[in-house]
């Protein structure tokens, strides 16, 4: 499936990109995170187990075991700090 992935705030800066289109062979958000970790460097550091980040699918925050629908807009970002 193809996913549109968007990054925000510190993650956008560390990954050096705001968004990308990705051909993805996995099923869940956790599979996607694992696929991104394999890139190494900032990807491996920021998405390591125990690091605080959130995943939203089509603009709703989901748990890592959530299945990703084809064509989904997936956002990965740090815990929010508005208000």
């Amino acid at each position, binding site marked *: 499936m193809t996913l549109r992935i968007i990054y*925000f705030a510190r993650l956008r800066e560390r990954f050096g990109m705001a968004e990308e289109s990705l051909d993805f062979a996995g099923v869940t958000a956790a599979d996607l995170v694992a696929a991104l970790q394999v890139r190494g460097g900032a990807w491996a550091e920021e998405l390591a187990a125990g690091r605080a980040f959130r995943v939203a699918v089509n603009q709703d925050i989901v748990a890592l075991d959530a299945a990703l629908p084809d064509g989904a807009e997936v956002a990965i*970002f740090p815990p*929010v700090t508005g*208000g």
Partner: protein
Amino acid sequence: MKIVVQSEPFDLGAEVDAMRAGRTDIGAIASFVGLARDMNAGSGVAAMTLEHYPGMTEKALARLVDDANARWALLDITVIHRIGRLLPGDPIVLVAVASPHRGEAFAACEFIKDFLKTQAPFWKKEETPEGTRWVEARASDDAAAARWSRD
């Protein structure tokens, strides 16, 4: 109901006047205004820049407003959150709640503010003498939101 994300400043008085204009069923309006401070985590803050996730932000704020309406008898809600670069003293966020009596207005205003801090996709980046830094989420904000959960 009014939910707006904007770079421009807002006027608390004008927003409250707009809520009560032409109606006489409102007994109380509780409002909260959050301001940019000149100090955070031990460093002076010269300015901050607020980033958000367009689309999801509005959706998350609408859900908070719906949740508040389901929980209390409310007459109107206004939420305005600013984005972009702000200076110390600038208003960041406004939450105003109108209801027949004060109890619901106070409670719903605090409820919306507590969940906005943990659910709405905004991020702050501060300019300090040591350089720029992203603000880290605080456990106390999660605790403030958690106290609203019903067993």
